């Protein structure tokens, strides 16, 4: 199959999928998470499952056998406490071995967990625990316990609080994890088989978790994910992790993204090591992980560190590095061409493809020897910065900047960018080692259907046989249907209907299917802005606040994938003239220093002084638009902003502003 040739749709899709996704799961008979826990205990009982750091150099592990046994005891203890099947149990904890023990307990008693980490806000505690009808809460430590206890009087549904660590002080009305486990153990010794019965009764359509998305403003929504959702992810994530691998866990474990990798590790019987942001550098060296789930920030930091080290190195080494990077770049680029790994956005013709093939073949031959030498001599040392056994990482939770993406993939650290959202548990598409198409998020999972809809008309652009190439290469809103798509938002039928129609989830993201069948992302139609650090920002509240200023007529907050927010502002000419600044047009105003100063002061007054806004919700920079936003062009009939259109239109100015921010 030649890359330039248009590929007939259905048959080749199947063909492609079979070639790319090797069936790697051993999950034929495993239909739910609890059954997977059971199977792993049987298969890998003696092997370490999760490890935690005791001292700077020593770690302690719990084996699959022990974990399952403890989980059964805990589950029985929970049942004795009155926990019913399908009940929601909150776990408020960051990454630690007790987290997975609590999760085992919850799953093995047929319940679902409602997980959040220590960054949960107080208002979220009261909202989520109440909305999710939680009766039993696990808390990580005494601080979390204290925070919860403040709100207990209003949380009337809660009947039991379980502290996950041993505490010297006794807390009235609070059980410890160990106590519940001990109680369960006694019951089981007396012949209780309640947990086993619960496991057998789990349906694949029941929830295994209920995850509340972090909404900074507006209320969080509870995403209902089923056992089937999770099992489909474990089956389909095309990452080869095996029993003798090591997985490092650094992303918050309550995010569904990190949880997929935990489940994958459990499924193949390899050990997951809990790390955190503070100790990650030394943990990478000690554990030498083969795999980790990551976010763009990790790679950004590592990139800066490597660059810094190269800058500080002696000139010979610096020169060698540049030479090595150049060779790797050319080599990988040529190889990528022949493995169909270059994103093809336009659909090349055969002739161009032939020319490119010759060009790449010549490049490959010329660069092979220097690449071999420099790759072994120079790049290997750089690769050691992620430990000596690193096989790859899936990066998610935000867009990976292209230069960082290229850098790591060229130096031989495979960073696979994935795409998805909590509502799709989470992965819809991810690059695999075989299909490492830089600049895309890889092929869509088999069994997952993608529709690309026109942004304005809602017309189906892909798959659409009446369009050339079945609609490949056309941008639109991504809709997805598949085994990973959520059941809905808990107790929010209307909100569910808004995004989920006919099984298709409206992702709100804009993308296209490339000519080599990968998904490429361009932006988003939904309002929420995800900053580079992963913080979710709802722009509408900020915009409303900005509009309170008489000097601001119209505005839009931007900052997707950036480190801080910026604003596009249309100032009020009348108000400016009234305050004595003589500008006649918006264009004039946009270049007037006085206006700039005034608006800057206004933004500061409206946002910075307002304590309701978190530091990352503050608008750090702005640009003045030379033209008002108009209905039909940039505004919908209901006067709401067509964010994507505006962003595209003022792309140049926004890029410039972002550059200023750096």
């Amino acid at each position, binding site marked *: 199959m030649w890359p330039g040739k248009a590929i007939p749709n259905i048959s080749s899709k199947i063909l492609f999928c079979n070639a790319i996704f090797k069936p790697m799961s051993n999950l034929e008979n495993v239909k739910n998470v609890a059954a997977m826990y059971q199977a792993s205990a049987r298969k890998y009982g*003696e092997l*370490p499952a999760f490890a935690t750091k005791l001292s700077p150099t020593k770690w302690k592990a719990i084996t699959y056998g022990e974990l399952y046994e403890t989980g059964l005891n805990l589950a029985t203890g929970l049942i004795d406490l009155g926990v019913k099947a399908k009940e929601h149990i909150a776990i408020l904890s960051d990454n630690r071995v007790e987290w997975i023990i609590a999760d085992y307990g919850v799953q093995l008693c047929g319940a679902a967990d409602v997980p959040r980490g220590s960054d949960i806000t107080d208002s979220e505690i009261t909202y989520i625990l109440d909305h999710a009808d939680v009766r039993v809460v696990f808390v990580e430590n005494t601080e979390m316990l204290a925070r919860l206890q403040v709100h207990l009087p209003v949380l009337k549904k809660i009947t039991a609080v379980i502290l996950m660590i041993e505490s010297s002080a006794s807390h009235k009305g609070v059980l410890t994890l160990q106590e519940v486990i001990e109680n369960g153990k006694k019951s089981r010794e007396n012949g209780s088989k309640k947990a086993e019965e619960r496991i057998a009764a789990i349906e694949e359509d029941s929830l295994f978790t209920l995850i509340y998305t972090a909404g900074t403003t507006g209320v969080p929504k509870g995403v209902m994910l089923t056992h089937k959702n999770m099992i489909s992810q474990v089956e389909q994530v095309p990452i080869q992790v095996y029993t003798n691998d*090591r997985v490092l866990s650094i992303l918050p474990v309550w995010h569904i993204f990190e949880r997929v990798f935990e489940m994958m590790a459990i499924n193949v019987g390899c050990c997951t090591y809990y790390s955190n942001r503070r100790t990650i550098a030394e943990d990478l060296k000690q*554990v030498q992980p083969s795999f980790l789930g990551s976010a763009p920030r990790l790679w950004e930091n590592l990139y800066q560190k490597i660059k810094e080290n190269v800058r500080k190195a002696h000139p010979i080494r610096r020169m060698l590095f540049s030479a090595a990077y150049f060779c790797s770049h050319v080599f990988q680029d040529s190889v990528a061409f022949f493995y169909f790994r270059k994103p093809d956005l336009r659909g090349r013709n055969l002739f161009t493809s032939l020319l490119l093939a010759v060009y790449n073949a010549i490049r490959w031959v010329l660069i092979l020897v220097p690449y071999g030498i420099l790759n*072994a001599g120079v790049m290997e040392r750089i690769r050691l910065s992620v430990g000596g*056994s690193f096989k790859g990482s899936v990066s998610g939770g935000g867009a990976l900047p292209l230069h960082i993406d290229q850098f790591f993939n060229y130096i031989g650290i495979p960073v696979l960018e994935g795409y998805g959202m909590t509502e799709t548990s989470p992965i819809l598409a991810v690059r695999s080692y075989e299909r490492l198409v830089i600049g895309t998020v890889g092929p869509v999972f088999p069994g997952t259907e993608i529709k690309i809809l026109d942004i304005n008309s809602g017309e189906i652009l892909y798959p659409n046989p009446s369009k050339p190439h079945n609609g490949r290469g056309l941008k639109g809103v991504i809709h997805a249907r598949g085994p990973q798509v959520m059941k809905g938002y808990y107790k929010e039928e209307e909100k569910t209907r808004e995004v989920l129609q006919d099984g298709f989830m409206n992702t709100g993201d804009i993308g296209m299917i490339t000519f080599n069948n990968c998904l490429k992302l361009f932006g988003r139609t939904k309002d929420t802005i995800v900053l580079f650090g992963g913080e979710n920002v709802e722009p509408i509240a900020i915009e409303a606040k900005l509009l309170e200023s008489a000097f601001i007529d119209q505005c839009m907050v931007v900052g997707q994938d950036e480190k801080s927010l910026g604003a596009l502002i249309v100032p009020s000419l009348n108000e400016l003239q009234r305050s004595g600044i003589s500008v006649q047009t918006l264009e004039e105003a946009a270049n007037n220093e006085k206006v700039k100063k005034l608006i800057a002061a206004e933004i500061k007054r409206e946002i910075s002084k307002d304590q309701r806004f978190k530091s990352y919700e503050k608008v750090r920079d702005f640009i003045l638009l030379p033209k008002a936003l108009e209905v039909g062009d940039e505004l919908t009939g209901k006067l709401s902003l067509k964010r994507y259109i505006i962003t595209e239109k003022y792309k140049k100015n926004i890029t410039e502003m972002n550059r200023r921010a750096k």
Partner: protein
Amino acid sequence: MNSELINKIADKATNGGGLINSLEQVLLLLMVLVIMFGMGATLNFKNFRDALKKPKGILVGFLSQFGIMPIVAYSIAVILKLDPQNAIALILIGCLPAGSTSNMFTYFSRGDVALSISMTTASTLTAIIMTPILLGIYASGFAEQIIVDASGQPFKIPYINIIISLALVLIPVIGGMILLKKSPDWAKVAEEIASFTGIVIIIFLLVSVIARHGDLMLLTPWTIFVSALFVGLFGMLFGYFFSWGIKLPPRWRRTISLETGIQNGPLSFAIVLASFKAPMDSQLLWLPILYSAMIVASSSIVTLFFRKIGKNDWELYENQTIQEKLFGKVYASKMANQY
């Protein structure tokens, strides 16, 4: 009796100052000095002592190095009916200690680098005795076939000169080892600069020699190319099966295999130039040059192959090593075949 190639080289040696000119000679000796120093800077006494405590690997390596390799070289020379000069050159390559590049290839082939370093140390230090003895056993017969002067006296291998050059070469090696003991940081820098300089000089020499003596390439019979290529490959092959036969773990097999096949090429240049008189030096130099050029390519390919077949056992071994370090114990290991 002499082949066209050998006559041509002799001709060049008498009329044009030999296979390599004086600039190249200086560069070559400098390179040997620098490479040997850099090599010394990677060999530490501690590794060596550790290896001696569990001497099995190092012993097998030693046997493989000085037992198998000379026989391989000798057999190739006999089977392919090489002319005596080339036969001596081939056997000389076979009797040399391992080169420092074997450590790097071992690393990438998922072998045991510590073992590789110990073996390199052991063979380099003992070469001063072993190389002359082995040459005496395998090469003296070929030497007798060469008539050097009108009186009909056969050629004599200059054992004393060889011992002296080996001893001289040990000085930078020991210098490097001392530097490593005194300052590991500087040793690292020295090693890096050495390998970089080494690569640059060796590429320069290869290009320059082959460009100036392109005619020799055309005169070189296929048997010479084959022997230059296969002396290394057979060394690796027999080294692997030897250690497999005595049931060493796979990562040691890979180590010993590479260690056996990869000889210290630059050292052979130094010995030839320092110990043999013209025109013999030029005649003996051609095969080592070809060997040096080919061994890099062939061991790269073997390394890639080892890397592939060694994946499973290496990952198991690595996981156990890390478990032992982190947990102080090793969990069940029977899961090696989960792939």
